[in-house]
């Protein structure tokens, strides 16, 4: 299988001579799709998005067309808001920032089309606080788009009005959780809301119907309008359509960001062919396939995956780690998730105790503290792991870690509980011997400087 990139969203990213100003964007056909979209009308765009089977690129992979269909612009009396979630902060993920920093107008065009499709008159771009440069870039791009008449009153004489504002985030991972984001945008602590009743489509921003979409998702809308939903759905695989931005980090020769049709290549192809294999000639030990909250996959694992065979019947086959197809359904069937597209590769020199301690330190720092299991449990996980890492582990610790994680996942207000618990559950289950060995040789100094991360 050829492992050539299929650059759709990243088409102009890093292309020599391509700049982020509107003139360059327009020279490359920019805002032409907006004209097309305005001509075919909102319902037609929604229809195309539904046909495209586009799934959200933020992490949960929820079908975008379905999300939009929860809101009927002809029936609601309240304003409808659209929010672009540009609070990219999942460890291992750095795709949205490429778009924001290098091709901001693509995002704006996708956003304007999505707003038009859903009868949105006011939209927000919620950008991660740490993207200081990105914020300035987006402000400038918005100004350019306004001047050019792509925003504001009567866009391109279509009679459609839209304003977009950039809102800088509050410096917390939880601001990326869509209801936390909405609270933060309203000027409050980014405490995720309870669902029910606060589903954004019903009671979103200022208790009005609200659509929250990821940066990459909104960019894809532009391409769907351009090529039509059915054509878009032909990229990738059924129910896993389009392209996917993959961010590879860790122990590979060529880490970086790549764009492939969803499911077009396997994990092994990504690591070995695209990224040049494991660096220093080391062996693959583990992969986290969808951002740090995804469950870890261990080298040598074999998964039983059901899929449609050539005869159209569902059949189960055994698939090794490196043969796992990188799409939503396959990774879910393997017990992990495609998540945010952040692929973290670990070679055999990595100490799993320290890797997990590092991940848990992040989640303990980022728990918003609203609900009990996450607030108290995640810091507890971090403390136990830190203790093991510095050589004070106890025999019962692996079992305790697992039990604490089990009591967080599924019992919290938002998915942060799972995000913090899944790494622990999977590391402890899959690398139990390593944890036990570490505890058995208590007292000896840790090899890497994890301690600085833990305190």
């Amino acid at each position, binding site marked *: 299988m050829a492992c050539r990139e299929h650059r759709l969203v990243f088409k102009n990213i890093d292309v020599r001579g391509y700049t982020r100003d509107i003139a360059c964007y327009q020279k490359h056909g920019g805002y032409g799709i907006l004209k097309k979209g305005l001509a075919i009308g909102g319902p037609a765009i929604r229809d195309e998005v539904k046909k495209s089977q586009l799934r959200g690129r933020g992490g949960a992979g929820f079908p975008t067309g379905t999300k939009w269909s929860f809101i009927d612009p002809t029936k609601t009396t309240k304003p409808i808001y659209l929010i672009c979630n540009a609070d990219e902060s999942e460890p291992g993920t750095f795709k949205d920032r490429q778009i924001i920093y290098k091709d901001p107008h693509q995002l704006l065009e996708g956003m304007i089309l999505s707003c038009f499709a859903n009868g949105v008159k006011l939209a927000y771009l919620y950008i991660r606080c740490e993207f200081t440069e990105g914020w300035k870039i987006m402000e400038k791009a918005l100004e350019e788009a306004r001047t050019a008449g792509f925003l504001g009153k009567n866009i391109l004489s279509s009679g459609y009005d839209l304003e977009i504002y950039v809102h800088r985030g509050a410096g917390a991972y939880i601001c990326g959780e869509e209801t936390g984001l909405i609270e933060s945008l309203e000027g409050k602590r980014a405490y995720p809301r309870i669902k029910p009743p606060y589903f954004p489509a019903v009671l979103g921003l200022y208790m009005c119907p609200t659509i929250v979409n990821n940066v990459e998702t909104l960019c894809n809308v532009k391409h769907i309008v351009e090529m039509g939903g059915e054509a878009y759905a032909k990229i990738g695989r059924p129910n896993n359509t389009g392209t996917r931005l993959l961010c590879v980090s860790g122990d590979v020769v060529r880490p970086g960001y790549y764009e492939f049709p969803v499911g077009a290549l396997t994990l092994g192809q990504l690591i070995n062919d695209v990224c040049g294999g494991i660096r220093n000639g080391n062996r693959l030990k583990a992969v986290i396939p969808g951002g740090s909250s995804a469950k870890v996959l261990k080298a040598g694992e074999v998964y039983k995956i059901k899929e449609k065979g050539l005869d159209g019947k569902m059949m189960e086959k055994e698939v090794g780690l490196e043969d796992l197809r990188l799409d939503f359904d396959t990774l879910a069937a393997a017990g992990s998730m495609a998540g945010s597209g952040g692929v973290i590769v670990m070679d055999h020199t990595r100490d799993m105790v320290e890797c997990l301690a590092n991940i848990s330190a992040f989640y303990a720092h980022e*728990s918003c503290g609203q609900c*009990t*299991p996450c*607030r108290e449990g995640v810091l507890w996980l971090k403390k136990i792991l830190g203790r093991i890492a510095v050589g004070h582990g106890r025999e019962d610790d692996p079992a*305790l870690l697992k039990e604490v994680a089990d009591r967080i996942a*599924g019992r919290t207000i938002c998915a942060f509980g799972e995000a913090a618990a899944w790494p622990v559950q999977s590391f402890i289950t899959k690398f139990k011997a390593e944890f036990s060995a570490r505890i058995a040789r208590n007292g000896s100094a840790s090899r890497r400087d994890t301690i600085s991360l833990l305190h």
Partner: protein
Amino acid sequence: MSCCQTLPMNPWNHDVAKDEKDLIDVQVDGVWLKMPRGLNVVEVAHRSKKFIPHYCYHPKLSVVGNCRMCLFEMGTPKMNADRSPVLGLDGKPEIAWMPRPQIGCATGVTQGMGIRTDSPLVKDCRNGVMEFLLINHPLDCPICDQAGECKLQEYSVEYGTGASRFVEDKVKKPKNVDLGERIVLDDERCILCSRCVRFSSEVMKEDVLGFVNRGSHTTLTAYPGKRFDSPYSLNTVDLCPVGALTSKDFRFQMRVWFLKETKGFCTSCATGCNTTIGSREGKIHRLTPRENESVNSSWMCDYGRLNFRQLDSSDRLTRPLLRAAGAQFPASWTDAITKVADGLKNVKPEEVAIVASARLTNEELFVLGRLAKELGTTQVDTVPHHGTADGFLRSGDANPNTRGAELLGLTSGGRKIISWEAAILTGKIKALLVLGGEDVATTGISPKALAQLDVLIFSGILGNETSRMAHVVLPSTGFAEKTGSMINGHGRLQRMTRAVAGPGEAREDWMILRDLRMALTGGNSLHSVEDIWKAMALEVPQFAGLSWAKIGDLGVQLETRSDLSERTLVKA
């Protein structure tokens, strides 16, 4: 269960269904019941005689679902292809149970919903939350004021584990934080349920409290530059399910399990907030609001709550006093009553005036009415006391029983009293009987006029300018020291029971008046509050059919009577 009436002061009333008559089928722990549609699962469980533990949920505050203690197992009816429910062998709908537990506080019941409140999953959820809440808790129960009425303690016993698996260092947070004039905060005890934050912003409409920092380091605090000095701040001490917020007045004073609880109501204004009086060995230690949706919901003001301290005053009158040779000397009750009776016998009926008090109970006022009739005087009035209505619970009428005095015909709202100064100075009034500890100087009767009186009798709990000039001082008892009823500003008849005895020889006013009547006329049939009620029920139309027992703990709304009130009163 509270009645269907709800008070406008509360933004939420989750314990009341939108339509109590719109009933649907709900299965609670295997039993099918009829419950109002949309009522949340915590309340449905409560009505099913089941209990779902919770910390953050409060029926009068918004639902935030942060404690996760009310997680339950939820099921929905299995449906056939034609959307009809799948029926089991017992003819009842089959339920498909969700693997993920849901929070009871935010889940309204729907037709055919299944609820499990004690399954293994639910038990594990509760046990987990208990463990999480306690790992960073200081466990300082021996010195904590909340001990004995702490939800952490109670739920630990019910749902927790004896031993802790936590061996790490606990999170350190601020202790002994001076949050406001009457409130102290211990952040390490706080479980971050946000009840106090919500009470302040939603009920008091004042944003003062909030959280800072993140994760396990989240800390409750007042906004920069603000202090939590709300006139209702102490309600947060009641709302706090743990010992994080404590009352400066009550902390370290008494272990709550020693407190005897007596049902009463506050007499600091005409609202009559229902209270629980906590006392031990004759001393009151605290007042807490008692839920009554027709009066005060679950709240009361800090002023009323702390007003019992006047009963502890060193200025309390504890013995009858008689004036002789320009000074007052202690005397026996017998001598004092005889002196009063003799004094009143020596003046003509039209020369007697009585300053009744709208601080007295209906029973006391009724007996006083009889006395006035026997004395033959119609010069009876009360002293108005004006407070400042705050639009919440504090009434503009600082007298607790103005309505009772009106109903029993013992007041003209202070209009009669205005002329008494002149009447005394011209010798038309020679005897003045002052009850309820009123200071008549505030009504325009000067010390000069008082000095001219042949007979000045004073009864009250604290001394004042009037008492110091009186010929006879009769020590009486305060609100928690007597049994009786009053009618609040909205026409609600409420009763209170004596929690503690009065100090020294102080007596309840109705006893003093009974003894005075016996001394004056020799006859009397009113020897108890129940006796007085029997007589009142016969003589007072609005009390017809009522008795002491029928008033009950939550009171009775009296029927609309134009002579009772111009306001619209609603029958409960």
